[in-house]
């Protein structure tokens, strides 16, 4: 039995959450059973990802190749679980467990009756399964299918609340995300027309041989892919849907959307740019400079826009735009250190953003207030929640001993190695601005006197979830060793194509 599980691990990481999602709908009336099953599904996903990690480590660098249906490429879909796949699968499943724990018992107030809560869990599990699939897939069209599953589940999660702003934000998100999907599909079509392969490895090899003959088509394919994934990952000028969508979603949904969904698209963008197009083509078309500039612009613009927001969740949503700028900057540096920094930052930001959004959600659910200046005294009345928020903020700013510091450090070193000063200035300015828009929240919560009303404390699952995430932020900052090593190997895998 264990041999059977071990042989099929890459596909189990994807289908365990998916199948349990489909069992949930007929059980809608027994909501405790639904929540327990959802939690079990995410724990199973995490277990499968962890087991896959040990299996991949035991193979010492050669990736675990799995062919769906037994058909070898180019006829079949190939799943490749290398260091990069394991890294992202661990990040996805690891963050999904505390978030679903937070949602336990908490959703009825935000979402509605048990039927809607069940649908929330179904969409959540579909999202987790599809993100895990994005980590391991090696087929171009499979990427498109998973991108669509993630898009539709994200839009469903955003529209879960009954507030009219939620419907509007979900509609904007749906239209713009489908625009992005159409661009991605166009890019995939152009790559297929150029190379005749849908497998990323074969397409990359063929494209490396063929691209000087078709410069315009390749340029079109690259731009389609960047714009398509850029719209969905909220890269700077294309980020306009993100603040509304992530601020109006229920808090567990905002946590997983900001933390993991946009990162999944960025990971797919990196796989496309490095694995299919290759470093030589990127340098020839100056794509890496474009990515770095977009990243710099995103950091500055996102942080400045976050400063102007009065509402806590919108401020955190604009902060996500800034952090995506860091990731795009790291992806555009084209050296191993920068890419290590980007990947580690990806995982650490997922944990940090989940902490921040869940804490903000707990505060909003307990006090009913969402404006920052109304949050006076929260630190005294809800100490655990505010402590988790503070730890997350320190991680986001990039203070040493917290996980954000390591990612930013590697990004800085990578920028210096690439010989560019502008990213260095942008990263430092971004940290200062991040402090500028997060510290007032902490100051208002701790140092202003609290009003005399009694606030409902968050329940025990919520506190446990916040504790887990905050501990992860600190642990990743103090002892990043194994995870950083995994990020380094994953970056080396991507750099092999440059």
């Amino acid at each position, binding site marked *: 039995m264990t041999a059977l599980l071990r042989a099929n691990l890459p596909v189990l990481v994807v289908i365990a959450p998916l199948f349990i999602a489909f069992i949930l709908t007929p059980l809608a009336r027994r909501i405790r059973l639904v929540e327990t099953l959802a939690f079990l599904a995410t724990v199973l996903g995490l277990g499968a990802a962890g087991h896959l990690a040990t299996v991949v480590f035991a193979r010492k660098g050669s990736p675990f190749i799995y062919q769906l249906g037994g058909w070898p490429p180019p006829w079949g879909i190939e799943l490749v679980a290398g260091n990069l796949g394991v890294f992202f699968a661990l990040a996805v499943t690891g963050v999904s467990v505390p978030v679903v724990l937070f949602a336990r018992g908490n959703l009825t107030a935000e979402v509605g009756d048990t039927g809607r809560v069940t649908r929330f869990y179904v969409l959540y599990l579909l999202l987790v399964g599809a993100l895990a699939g994005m980590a391991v897939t090696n087929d171009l069209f499979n990427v498109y299918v998973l991108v669509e599953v993630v898009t539709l589940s994200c839009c469903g999660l955003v529209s879960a609340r009954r507030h009219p702003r939620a419907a509007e934000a979900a*509609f904007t998100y749906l239209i713009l995300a489908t625009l992005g999907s159409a661009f991605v599909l166009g890019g995939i079509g152009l790559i297929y027309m150029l190379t005749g392969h849908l497998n990323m490895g074969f397409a990359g090899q063929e494209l490396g041989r063929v691209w000087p003959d078709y410069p315009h088509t390749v340029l079109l394919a690259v731009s389609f892919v960047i714009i398509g994934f850029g719209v969905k990952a909220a890269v700077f000028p294309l980020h306009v849907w993100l603040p509304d969508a992530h601020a109006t979603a229920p808090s567990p949904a905002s946590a997983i959307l900001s933390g993991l969904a946009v990162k999944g698209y960025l990971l797919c963008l990196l796989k496309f740019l490095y694995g299919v197009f290759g470093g030589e083509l990127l340098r020839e078309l100056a794509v890496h400079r474009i990515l770095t500039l977009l990243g710099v612009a995103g950091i500055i613009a996102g942080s400045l826009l976050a400063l102007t927001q009065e509402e806590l969740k919108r401020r955190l949503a604009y902060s996500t735009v800034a952090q995506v700028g860091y990731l795009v900057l790291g992806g555009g540096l084209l050296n191993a250190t920068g890419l290590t920094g980007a990947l580690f930052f990806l995982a650490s930001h997922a944990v940090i953003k989940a902490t921040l959004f869940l804490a903000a959600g707990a505060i909003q659910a307990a006090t009913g207030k969402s404006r920052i200046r109304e949050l006076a005294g929260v630190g005294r009345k809800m100490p655990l929640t505010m402590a988790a928020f503070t730890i997350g903020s320190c991680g986001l700013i990039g203070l040493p001993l917290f996980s954000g510091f390591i990612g930013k450090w590697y990004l800085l070193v990578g920028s210096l190695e690439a010989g560019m000063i502008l990213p260095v200035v942008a990263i430092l300015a971004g940290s200062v601005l991040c402090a500028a828009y997060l510290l007032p929240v902490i100051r208002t919560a701790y140092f202003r006197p609290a009003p005399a009303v009694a606030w409902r404390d968050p329940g025990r699952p919520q506190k446990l979830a916040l504790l887990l995430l905050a501990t992860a932020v600190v642990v990743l900052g103090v002892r990043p060793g194994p995870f950083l090593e995994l990020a380094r190997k994953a970056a080396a895998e991507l750099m092999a194509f440059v």
Partner: protein
Amino acid sequence: MNELWPRLLVNYPYLAAAILFVIGTFTVLTHPNLFKKLLGINIMESAIFLTFVASGNIRGGVAPIRATANAEAVYINPLPSALMLTGIVVSVSVTAFALALIVRLYRVYGTTDLRRIVVRRKEVTGDDGFAQG
């Protein structure tokens, strides 16, 4: 330029797809009516499907069904058509979801014109959007 026209006419599916794609994108981004935005998305996706399916075509080939053709026939590539079936499914799902959201928005705001929704947002939902969940 005079060698461009014959090339464009030979590749007429791709030319049509490019024109449809631009029309669709332009409609999505600029038209204020929500239904028209959705139609723009559909036109855009139709253009992409057309590109894909046309890329699989071989002039003078037959449909790739084994039982009905003789042994010497050149079959057209069935893979892009199969892939676009998935794309059409996705497009239908997105359309259905967007229509449900439009119905929901219509019931709150009473209009499907985005300009009027932006104006009425303040009076219907409160000044910034929301204070509590």
